[in-house]
Each structure stands twice: as C-alpha cells, then as structure tokens.
C-alpha cells in the first residue's frame, strides 16, 4: 500500500497512491495509516483522489484508521469518486466523516 504525506500549517494530508482499497489490502492500509499518522496534526485529510473502488473491507479499514487516531484528532476524506462516495452514502458513513469533493475544498475548509 503506498501512502504519502504532505504537511500544511494546520493539517496532515495523506494521499492514497492506489486505485483500490479492498479486502486484499485493507489490513495493510490500516497498518500503514497507523505508521503514517503517528503524532502530527490533529486534523488528517485522507486524499482518495486516485481511489476508484472500495469495498466494505476498505470502508472498515478507513473507519479503523479514524478510530486509531484517538480522541481529539479527526480524519476527513477528500476526492471521493462516485463509486467510493456511493459506499459511504449507502452505509450512512457519510454522516460520520466529513467528505469533500476535492482536496482543495478540504484544505480550504478548517475542518470544524
């Protein structure tokens, strides 16, 4: 699983450099997210612009990534493709995460 990080003044942007977060890579994603987000800003923006597909394992791994950030830190999601957004909407997880259509919109918002 390839993740890369960019730091802004107020947030850490973690970009997923993969087309899918599915059952085959969900566990790796969760572990890599833990390593990538250890310490750092309270606000983490997960840039999903390259991701075309997630399944329920991938969704579960993103939920796990938010939970392991711990209290006081938040995980926002940016750049959701229509299919990825559909999975969040159907499971009502769009009410749990802040979703932004693009990374620019996510960084322009202060997250609160």
């Amino acid at each position: 699983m390839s993740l890369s990080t960019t730091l802004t003044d107020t947030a850490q942007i973690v970009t997923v450099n993969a087309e899918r977060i599915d059952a085959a890579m969900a566990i790796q994603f969760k572990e890599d997210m833990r390593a990538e987000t250890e310490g750092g800003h309270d606000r983490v923006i997960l840039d999903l612009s390259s991701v075309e597909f997630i399944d329920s394992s991938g969704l579960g791994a993103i939920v796990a990534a938010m939970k392991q950030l711990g209290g006081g830190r938040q995980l926002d999601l940016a750049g959701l493709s229509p299919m990825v957004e559909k999975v969040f909407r159907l499971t009502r997880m769009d009410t749990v995460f802040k979703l932004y259509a693009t990374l620019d919109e996510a960084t322009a918002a202060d997250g609160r």
Partner: protein
Amino acid sequence: MVETFACSFQATELSARDGIGSVVSKLRDLGVSEARAGEVQIALAEAVNNVVEHAYAGRTPGDVRIRCNLDNDQLWINIWDAGLPLPDNSLPPGNPADISGPIADLPEGGFGWFLIRELTSDIQYQRTNGSNELSLCFEIELKNR
C-alpha cells in the same frame, strides 16, 4: 437480446479482484453504464468476498464460478462455490450497521450483506449437494438501444 458469459477463479482475495474486474469490464462492453456497472461491482465484490472469507474459511480455497445473464432490462449473476453453507442455510438479513454510538464504537465490518441487499432487486440462495448458489438480480438499462 440475451448475453451469457461466465468465468471462474480460485477463491483468494487477489484472484477474486481479477475475476470481478473481468465481469465488470464485460458488462461495460455490453452497454451497461459506468455508474450501474460500478454498483454491480460493489455488490459482486461483497458476495465474492464472503465466499473467500467465510465459505472457504480455514480450508484450501476452492473455486468460485460466476455466470451472468444480461437481457434488455435485467442482469442475473449466479455465483457458485463448494465451501461452507451460509449460517442456517439462509440469506442473512443484512441490517444496516449501527453507527449511532461514539467514534470508538463504530463498526469496522458487517456492511456486506446490507450493501448487497441495497444494490440488488432480488436475491436467491440455494444449497445443493455441497454447493452454494447465490443469485443476484439487478435492473439494468442498456445504453444505445
């Protein structure tokens, strides 16, 4: 017009990914819209993941066979495996996961059957001679027809 096509693959996560990808790309070739093919992909991936993770749990992965029947307004996808039956030999209810609690209590799984039920118009399940047959139906509008 009725189009029938089939594929089979070993029940591993990576082979399943390729098998599902080949079905979805065939559907696009046959005129299923990008959005609808995406929804079929979500449901099919959940159904096949269940076979990989549960039906063949703890045993040598067997085969998954898929046959698709596409006519002018419906797609039926039949999925066979030779693994364990569904619990109680019946389809799980697929209730929505409870996301009302605090973040620390959010579910990290249990979304699969809910997604399958949300995205299909009909589901059938049969256990026959040691095989599972799961049939998923989708309403389809073909492009350019």
